[in-house]
């Protein structure tokens, strides 16, 4: 597959919790705030639902960056879900970094239902960061890439 450096557009997977971040994304939409179409949102009931396997699978299937968004700590719809998620993702991202996967490819951001602007800004910034990094090579599955 030929990838033209100049035109590289990353694929971003964003796991968004149903109650805050997904609503935040919605708000960004209704407010006509721009963020790249390369961001694929996957709605989850709670950030706590995000299994480390989901993150890895996203990379396997061609994601160049994975971001998880949830309610702000303390505001979880299920009271404590995002606290657990926070510990998990901290450890997982640290491990990915330890294995030499570029740490900028993974990210957690807390976005409330009222923060449409933050959602758009976060995505813009994340896409920019990942674009600079280029294609995900270190955690790719070649079988999913060849056409």
């Amino acid at each position, binding site marked *: 597959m030929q990838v033209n450096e100049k035109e590289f557009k990353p694929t971003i997977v964003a796991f968004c919790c149903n109650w805050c971040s997904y609503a935040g994304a919605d708000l960004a939409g209704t407010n006509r705030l721009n963020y790249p179409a390369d961001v694929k949102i996957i709605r989850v009931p709670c950030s706590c639902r995000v299994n480390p396997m989901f993150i890895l699978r996203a990379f396997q*299937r*061609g994601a160049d960056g994975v971001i998880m968004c949830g309610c702000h700590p303390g505001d979880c719809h299920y009271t404590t879900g995002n606290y657990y998620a926070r510990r998990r993702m901290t450890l997982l991202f640290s491990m990915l970094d330890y294995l030499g996967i570029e740490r900028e490819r993974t990210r957690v951001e807390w976005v409330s239902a009222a923060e449409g602007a933050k959602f758009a800004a976060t995505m813009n910034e994340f896409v920019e960061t990942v674009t600079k990094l280029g294609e995900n090579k270190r955690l790719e599955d070649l079988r*999913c890439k060849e056409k």
Partner: protein
Amino acid sequence: MFKLSLNNLNDLFKAAAEGGALYIPADDGAGQARFTRWCDGMEMSKALKTVKSAKEFFFPQTESLVDFKMKGKEIEIIDPRTESEDFVVFGVRACDARSFSILDKVFLADPVDTYYKSRREHGTIVTMACSRPEETCFCTAFGVDPTAPEGDAVCYMTEDELFIEAKTEKGTAFVEKVKAVLTDGDAAPVEAQKAAVKEILPKLPLANLSTDSFGGDKLMELFDSPKWAELSASCLGCGTCTFVCPTCQCYDIRDFETGHGVKRFRCWDSCMFSDFTKMAHGNPRLTQLERFRQRFMHKLVYFPANNDGEFGCVGCGRCLSKCPISMNIVKVMKTLEGESK
């Protein structure tokens, strides 16, 4: 017979790698030997054996069988194979060399496995006689002579020289190819070395291992032995023995959905794994006892039953070194000795 000074081994490799791939046993990052594609300057490992056997050259751990593209109700079938290059595997020991003839009996039996056959045709096997057998070796119990391996060409290594002798057409072609770096050799040092190793062989701790209690005709007595329970009791159910074994050839066929098609691949499987025989409606081998028994019965009874008495083990001793709980075919054979009349 030709020879070459060990100092010039790199020249030999350089000549052998001309126009194709050459694989030699080399030490990896963890200090263990494995067959590695040679590049200039790579040194041959001094270890007796590689961690994994050489079977993967002909029967790789995973290989693509067929690709599918799906479109609505339609399926397109694509043969993914491309012409493979010729290659040489250098430094194969006698036990591994024998394992190829065992694998041949499975894969080249009708209907021929064309994937395996093509690799067999492309590969030249240059074997290396053993000069320092280890305590885990018991190839002689299965009729392998470590001083005279099979193979397309055979090498013998003395203190400072390497002797090489072609045995087959492919072997002759190999020797022709590297002839420029060789000089004529005399068989005497080789014979002297063979004799020295033959002195060591009877002193090996497993030299007296007997296969008399096993074979295709002992099926039911061995199968029903109550001793399988204690033998399998601490088995972890991992696949280490299977995956390091030169003769284990069971495989699985699986599909991988890539997002733009399906890749059907074949990969090594192990009868020690719990899902090996699992079906939608149940599993005929429910506990580790049955799975454990299957592996050893296959090598010592079922295989000889189907192959004129030839056993499915070559005595390389890899499972002895590598089993996490040190349970292995030798312990099984010793325990079951005398179970069959």
